[in-house]
């Protein structure tokens, strides 16, 4: 069976035949077809099932507003559920599957729901499934969930790539129909930078779907000519297959370009889609209008669709659902479609017009003051039941019925900034209101200017206005002669009577009865109506149903439509693949990866790496003989205490603070005094937030009278720099101080351990003896015969230690040089695990302790908050709640049995008594095994812990089912008096 319903002409490439598969069956079509048009050509009307009642459905429209003909496109990982057959471009080998049925599409077991319809009214589920309570989770909900959704995700990773892009233009034109083309042409000729975007793959809008719009030439030809001229303009960018999805602040629009969805397969390296962020100075919305339907009993059968869709299928795609069609209309456009169909050789069974003054035709029968009461045909329309003006009932055979209830302007984008559309009584449509997104003008049918002449004229007006505000002079433009038929319409929303179910929202199965039930139950506000009945909440977001729903609610409430209100329009205009919003930022590319200067060297040594923010840091350096990470970390930590180790600490934040007021500035930023710090000296310091909580800790080194180098923790490098700039620019604007982040400028290594001096003595070109370079000294030095470097004698490990920094390009060379120099001392590279062990052994806080809720008091550093001077956070740190007697103090704990692991995140409880929140005494922040003490140890916050050394407590972790008896000890496990670092 091949294309039995293919008509003559149309905008398709008959020379080429494409083969495709629907539900496993092979069909043929042509380039220019959509899946829907190709299926219709092959005599297929049934394409899907509705959501709730599983009613048989075919295309209801020919565009992106489609509620019915939704399929799963492609297979496997590329399967794309809920794809509109009416917009899916046909390509050779296309495969698609119908959705939402159990059994075959024709014989769907779930169609039983249609028989039970009277029980499944709007909101029925809110009223039942409550008893017995236990049944909800076990029985009722699983049943409801099983019926959820239409298509299914593959559960496989999306294999395609998505790109993002940024465009800038004077004028963005949304929609390339008559109005959009006219406005773009004028703006282009006048020298503006124009972007013309249209969701369709063929520009021209109405011109492609209707005939007789221009009086002296074919609209399609004019569109083609105009597009050709626009294409030739350097400053004009034409973007077909590009849907403008949202209007955002200050002239920014989001647009999705479907780069390769219409191709059999995406070319390697090319994106499937691109999300464009368009920065426009002005925008013009020319999105056209969407036809609306009329509700009547069983108005949802395959073959029944919007009249304009029937016309578009015939004119543009040369296909029809059936060789015999009827039209049901309340306005003149239905008659134009009938004429077009006739011209295509389709038999017109009649035009049923609700108006008593319906125009007459010599070519086909027109029933004035008539209505379609019902339809028949299980899997597709067979006949309609009509009552004519005299009240006579008749049955008319037809396989296609075009319905026209008038046109709704596509106002969506004009409402994305909260503006509400306003009701125009004369046209009986909602048109864009006064509150538009900044810089937007609405033209053509989207503005309620429906005739082709009006559309073209409004295009010129729109462009002229925009050009004026852009300071450009509008060139003259010659517009083609076009039809200027007035809108002749008598609002008619639904056929009365209790005949049967009349659909408003086709996909979600919302009928006129549901709306009256919602009213009856008090769900009368528009949003209540929508949420209670699910009207307009389907994948089409009510493009073909919302206004009708409002009108019917108004009728029931005996109100005017505007009194009932209007629904809120939200982005995206049509549904958008989540992958497009994510772009390239996925998998390993989710965030950039920062590497330390010694990364390659560490990799050569077989280091294991771990994420630290965006950094990758060496976690530990296993040797071939070591079988688990603990062995490695123990070895590394011991080496530092017994001989010497080296660790890359480049990731620590570094900020250059210079200027004649640098010292005074830091004195305000740090809780402790910095003013009197001597040149060549370093000081440990803590910074508070203004609320008195510790923000960060680090060191300040004074390299010169007016030059400090400040370090921050790795995690806080960015926020601390931001905070310092805030203090500098906003709080002390008059100070002479300049900041510069130098985190990456210097490759910095810790060389720690009793032999560290001997190692560095071989590298640093200066005397490192204790007298010449004592504890906390710092200096600009040179290494290896003249390379500029910075040396700090500071220690995180508690051992004799130095931090040496060279310009980053030399980092790789320096680490190798240090290893050479340290060879005789078996210098041991160590990672952040050992770093953690060493600092826990010394009770130095890091992120786990500085968790944003701890004060200097909690850390046992209360005395560092200078009494003599002001500092950020000083005043509020005095608040009573932060200074209670039972305040948490940082302490150390040891298990009575040294081999028992301590759990970070465990809570501390008294030895006896109940274990619950009300008896909580504190919690463990960091834990590790100390190879030096041959015991597990941990740091913890304990209520008034400072006074409780020696006490025995229980460390409980119900989550990990652990309980350990522990002793409270000083957090300074190793060398508490700190003599080693001064040696």
């Amino acid at each position, binding site marked *: 069976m091949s294309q039995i319903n293919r008509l003559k002409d149309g905008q398709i490439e008959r020379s080429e035949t494409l083969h495709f598969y629907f539900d496993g069956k092979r069909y043929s079509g042509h380039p220019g077809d959509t899946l829907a048009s190709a299926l219709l050509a092959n005599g297929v009307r049934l394409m899907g099932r509705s959501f709730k009642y599983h009613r048989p459905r075919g295309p209801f429209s020919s565009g992106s507003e489609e509620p019915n003909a939704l399929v799963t496109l492609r297979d496997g990982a590329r399967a794309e559920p809920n794809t509109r057959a009416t917009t899916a471009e046909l390509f050779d080998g296309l495969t698609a599957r119908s959705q939402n049925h159990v059994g075959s599409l024709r014989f769907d077991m779930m169609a039983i729901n249609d028989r039970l319809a009277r029980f499944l009214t709007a909101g029925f589920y809110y009223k039942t499934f409550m008893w017995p309570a236990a049944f909800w989770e076990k029985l009722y909900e699983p049943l409801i969930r099983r019926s959820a959704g239409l298509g299914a995700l593959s559960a496989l990773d999306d294999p395609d790539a998505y790109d993002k892009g940024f465009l800038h233009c004077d004028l963005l034109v949304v929609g390339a129909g008559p109005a959009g083309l006219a406005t773009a042409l004028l703006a282009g000729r006048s020298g503006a930078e124009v972007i013309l975007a249209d969701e369709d793959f063929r520009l021209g809008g109405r011109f492609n779907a209707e005939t007789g719009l221009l009086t002296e030439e074919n609209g399609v030809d004019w569109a083609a000519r105009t597009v050709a001229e626009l294409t030739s303009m350097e400053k004009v960018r034409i973007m077909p297959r590009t849907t403008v999805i949202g209007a955002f602040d200050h002239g920014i629009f989001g647009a999705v370009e479907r780069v390769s969805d219409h191709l059999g397969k995406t070319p390697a390296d090319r994106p499937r889609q691109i999300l464009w962020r368009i920065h426009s100075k002005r925008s013009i919305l020319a999105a056209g209008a969407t036809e609306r339907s009329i509700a009547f009993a069983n108005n949802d059968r395959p073959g029944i669709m919007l009249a304009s869709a029937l016309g578009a299928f015939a004119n543009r795609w040369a296909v029809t659902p059936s060789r015999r069609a009827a039209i049901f209309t309340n306005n003149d456009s239905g008659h134009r479609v009938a004429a077009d169909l006739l011209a295509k050789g389709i038999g017109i069974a009649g035009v049923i017009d609700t108006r008593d003054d319906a125009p007459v035709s010599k070519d086909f029968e027109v029933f004035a003051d008539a209505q379609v009461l019902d339809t028949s045909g299980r899997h597709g329309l067979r006949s309609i039941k009509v009552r004519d003006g005299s009240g006579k009932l008749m049955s008319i055979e037809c396989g296609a019925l075009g319905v026209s209830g008038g046109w709704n302007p596509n106002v969506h984008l004009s409402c994305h900034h909260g503006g509400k559309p306003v009701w125009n009584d004369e046209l009986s449509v909602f048109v864009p209101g006064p509150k538009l997104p900044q810089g937007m003008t609405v033209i053509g049918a989207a503005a309620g200017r429906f005739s082709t002449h009006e559309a073209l004229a409004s295009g010129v007006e729109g462009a002229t206005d925009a050009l004026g505000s852009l300071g450009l002079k509008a060139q003259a433009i010659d517009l083609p002669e076009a039809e200027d038929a007035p809108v002749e319409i008598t609002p008619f929303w639904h056929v009365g009577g209790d005949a049967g179910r009349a659909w408003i929202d086709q996909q979600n199965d919302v009928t006129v009865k549901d709306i009256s039930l919602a009213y009856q139950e008090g769900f009368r506000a528009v949003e209540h109506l929508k949420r209670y009945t699910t009207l307009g909440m389907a994948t089409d977001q009510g493009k073909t149903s919302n206004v009708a729903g409002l009108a019917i609610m108004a009728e029931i409430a005996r109100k005017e439509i505007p009194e009932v209100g209007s629904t809120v329009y939200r982005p995206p205009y049509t549904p958008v693949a989540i992958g497009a919003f994510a772009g390239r930022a996925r998998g390993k590319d989710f965030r950039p990866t*920062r590497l330390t200067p010694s990364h390659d060297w560490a990799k050569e040594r077989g280091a294991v790496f771990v994420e630290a923010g965006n950094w990758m840091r060496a976690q530990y350096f296993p040797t071939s003989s070591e079988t688990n990470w603990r062995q490695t970390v123990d070895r590394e930590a011991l080496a530092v205490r017994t001989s010497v180790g080296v660790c890359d600490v480049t990731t620590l934040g570094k900020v250059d603070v210079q200027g004649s007021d640098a010292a005074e500035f830091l004195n305000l930023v740090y809780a402790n005094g910095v003013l009197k710090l001597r040149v060549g000296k370093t000081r440990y310091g803590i910074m508070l937030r203004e609320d008195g909580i510790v923000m960060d800790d680090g060191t300040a080194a004074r390299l010169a009278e007016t030059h400090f180098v400040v370090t921050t923790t790795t995690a806080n490098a960015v926020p601390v720099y931001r905070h310092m700039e805030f203090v500098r620019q906003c709080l002390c604007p008059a100070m002479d101080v300049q900041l510069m982040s130098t985190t990456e400028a210097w490759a910095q290594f810790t060389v720690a351990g009793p032999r560290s001096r001997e190692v560095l003595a071989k590298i640093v070109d200066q005397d490192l003896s204790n007298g010449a370079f004592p504890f906390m000294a710092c200096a600009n030095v040179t290494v290896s015969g003249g390379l500029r470097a910075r040396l700090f004698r500071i220690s995180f490990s508690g051992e004799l230690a130095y931090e040496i920094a060279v310009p980053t390009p030399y980092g790789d060379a320096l680490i190798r040089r240090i290893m050479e120099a340290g060879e005789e001392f078996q210098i041991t590279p160590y990672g952040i695990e050992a770093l953690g062990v060493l600092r826990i052994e010394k009770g130095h806080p890091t992120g786990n302790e500085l968790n944003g809720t701890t004060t200097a008091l909690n850390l046992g550093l209360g005395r560092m908050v200078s009494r003599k001077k002001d500092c950020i956070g000083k005043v509020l740190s005095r608040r009573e709640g932060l200074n209670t007697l039972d305040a948490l103090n940082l302490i150390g704990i040891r298990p009575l049995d040294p081999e028992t692991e301590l759990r970070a995140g465990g809570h501390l409880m008294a030895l006896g008594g109940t274990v619950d929140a009300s008896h909580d005494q504190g919690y463990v922040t960091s834990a590790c095994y100390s190879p030096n003490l041959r015991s597990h140890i941990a740091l913890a916050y304990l209520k008034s812990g400072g006074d409780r050394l020696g006490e025995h407590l229980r460390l409980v972790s119900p989550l990990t089912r652990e309980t350990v008896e522990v002793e409270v000890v000083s957090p300074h496990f190793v060398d508490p008096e700190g003599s080693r670092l001064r040696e």
Partner: protein
Amino acid sequence: MSDLRPRSALDGVDDVIGTIRLREVTNISLVSVAARRNSQDRCHAWLRMTFGAVPGPNGSESSVAGTALWMGPDQWMLSRQIGPDFDYAGNIKTELDEAASVTEQTGSWVMIEVTGDRLADAFERLCAIPIRTMQPGEARRTQINHQSCFVVLESKSAARILGARSSARSLWHALTMTARAL
């Protein structure tokens, strides 16, 4: 002279992908200069003398002495095609002395040159700068795939990107992916 050898972030990689050429610019020395309070005039005079003019916002100025790039109010990044062995910062500091805060920046950045007729197409997929209306010499600080970068336009078909050295490989990866996608 030290025998420690410098290593550039991308080991001087140079690649042509489709119509786009990507090349790491090596042997670049960088230093940032911030005018001290009440020394703006002296700094401006020095910049004018050294680079011919004082680069303003979104701008850069080049001369035989290298390129000066506006970083922020009274703050510039100077770059010069000379090996990192040379103490560029120290050198500038002696010239400006207490008139400016001078900071070594050579190690902070990787410099990648992007050339090709489809330069604008590439940058449209990378960042929000108005690449098509920018003039040679114009510069912007912007985000490329979550990385903060400076982009200096050299001509309609050539631009230089300064990106954080630590994530140089991520930046390079982003650029190559985009070049392939065009």
